[in-house]
């Protein structure tokens, strides 16, 4: 183990670089797929890579994370397969969710990713349920929920914080404060000007961290995970970050923010800063990092090819997985099964 000035093993630093650059390249590719009309409703995580990367570096496959509508970065940081993710975005049967969930709902229980969720705040109470399982079953697993600054105003957060605090659950609440909920600025919507401060009401640690610094994110996350594993209860982390793109594909963010502000945050870009740190401290050379970038580009390209070559689900799959066990006839009652239209989609030939 090689400790660096940050106190972090150099292998961990390199691995975090790899994760962040992979997220960025993946998101660039998902945007290209969306621009070519293959998927709708994309919420890009570009700019926010450091937050789940610093956290998930402390987690194993048995620790659970929970996401939001904007969750590709959470999934990648937790180790979900890029090919299956991209296939899910394109609605293919080889996707993580067999094409049932799509961009807002990627889940992979084997990797401890218990789902992105399209309802703002909805996953927060669910996440403390996984922490409850760990406590009751006596494991040292932790549960981490990511949510936006907008979600901080849902009652669900407050109920979950209180429960986690009274039961000392191994739960970690990570607010990704990217300054906006759709077009609504954080300072308009969040009274008191802080999410981290809300922890005080529940007498648990509330930590404000620069979410564009993966080193800071790693350190703060390590403390929270350590407390949770040691049975010392929950932590609320507010990671200050920024989404570089609009809220979703078609949104023009300059309608509610300025170019100067965008520039200000982009100057503090998490990948750029880690690159500088690694090079300045002679932990890696620019060439080595370029090579990692190139590898990320290639694995994303491979994922895109896999996704594009994969078949769409067969129409009959519509009726799979509604329940574990249910008579199929009851699912289609009242529906016209005959005369099903050709949806006009061609499954590409696998090459």
């Amino acid at each position, binding site marked *: 183990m090689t400790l660096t000035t940050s106190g972090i093993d150099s292998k961990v630093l390199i691995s975090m670089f790899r994760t962040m650059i992979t997220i960025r390249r993946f998101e660039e590719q998902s945007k290209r797929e969306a621009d070519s009309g293959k998927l709708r*409703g994309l919420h890009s995580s570009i700019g926010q890579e450091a937050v789940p990367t610093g956290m998930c570096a402390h987690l194993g496959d048995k620790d659970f994370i929970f996401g939001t509508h904007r969750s590709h970065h959470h999934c990648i940081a937790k180790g979900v397969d890029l090919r299956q993710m991209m296939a899910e975005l394109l609605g293919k049967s080889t996707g993580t969710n067999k094409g049932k969930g799509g961009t807002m709902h990627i889940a992979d229980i084997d990797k401890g990713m218990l789902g992105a969720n*399209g309802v703002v705040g909805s996953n927060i109470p669910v996440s403390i349920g996984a922490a409850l399982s760990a406590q009751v079953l006596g494991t040292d697993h932790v549960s981490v929920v990511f949510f936006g600054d907008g979600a901080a105003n849902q009652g669900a957060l407050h109920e979950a914080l209180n429960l986690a605090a009274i039961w000392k659950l191994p739960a970690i609440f990570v607010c990704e404060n990217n300054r906006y909920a759709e077009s609504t600025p954080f300072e308009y919507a969040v009274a008191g000007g802080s999410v981290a401060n809300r922890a005080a009401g529940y007498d648990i640690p509330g930590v404000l961290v620069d979410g564009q610094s993966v080193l800071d994110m790693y350190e703060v996350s390590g403390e929270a995970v350590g407390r949770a594993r040691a049975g010392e209860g929950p932590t609320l982390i507010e990671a200050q970050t920024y989404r570089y793109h609009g809220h979703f594909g078609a949104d023009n963010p300059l309608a509610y923010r300025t170019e100067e502000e965008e520039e200000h945050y982009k100057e503090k870009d998490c990948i750029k800063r880690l690159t500088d740190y690694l090079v300045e401290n002679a932990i890696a050379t620019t060439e080595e990092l370029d090579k990692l970038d190139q590898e990320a580009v290639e694995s994303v390209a491979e994922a895109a090819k896999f996704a594009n070559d994969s078949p769409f*689900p067969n129409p009959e799959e519509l009726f799979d997985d509604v329940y574990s066990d249910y008579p199929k006839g009851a699912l289609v009652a009242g529906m016209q099964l005959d005369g099903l239209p050709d949806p006009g989609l061609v499954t590409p030939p696998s090459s």
Partner: protein
Amino acid sequence: MGDKVRKVSYIQAVNEVLRQEMERDSSVIVMGEDVAGGGGRPDKKDAWGGPMRLTKGLIFEFGENRVRDTPISEAGFIGAGVGAAATGLRPVVELMYVGFLGVCADQIFNNAAKMHYMFGGKVKMPLTIMTATGAGLNNAAQHSETVYSVFTHYPGLKCVVPSGPYTAKGLYASAIRDDDPVIIFNNRPAMGLRSDDHVPEEPYTIPIGKASISVEGTDITLIGIGYTTRLCMEAAEELESDGYSVEVIDLLSISPLDTETILESVRKTRKVVIVDEDYPRCNVASDISALVAEEAFDYLDAPPKRVTPPHTSVPYSRALEAHWIPNKDKVVSAARQVLE
């Protein structure tokens, strides 16, 4: 009509009626997430004008006191809408997608729906909730639902489903002026479709609880709800080219339900197909089917038929969603089964 036809989009029609009702009555206010947008930034006011752009520009005319951006706190601001309605305002509150109903269900079902009755009629509840419904945009299970039936189930709530710009404008005006809570369902795919409706500029109302007959016919009745009325109209065209005379009912209100218009039509045509995008169990189509079976059994030449999605959540993949959603072909095929 010729040049007299005034075409506006569904979104413009709603925007216009909101403006007119706010001008007409200073107790009308609008609340919701990003209804103006850019909250608190004077230079970025009206950044969105609503997630569906229904409220665009209203903040400039009516100010921040009456056009309020809310945090993402549906229980909070829909509950506030209930309290404001009980105390002198006529709030129009936006629940962005009907799938988010779960977050604020208590406020709608336990308070908005029940207060008037529970308090012996001593409190009025002039609350309007507008919300987006509809599959077909690959938005997956949480952003594509219709769930009319959940609302119609509750006594105390009125529920309306416009089918185009003309009916939207008239139903919104009625909803806002109504002293009971009214939920208005806006179908997202339909909001983006072109329409030939003539929409008068001057304010008008369309009565809540009255269905409209879109075309008269004698061989079969097709009943549509909002967007599915369009499917019925397309199906009618195809069936008519086969020589059938088709009557299409545009339901418009699902609570109260215009049972008279439905029964009168079915007694005439003796055959009925009901097209509902809601989940098939206990939905509005089942309700109408039961009504027809109970009240017009002796007139029927064939059992009533429902066209609905299957009893599954809405799938993301467009390859699956295309099979899930009702469409013209399914309506035509159901109608043929009933006719033959």
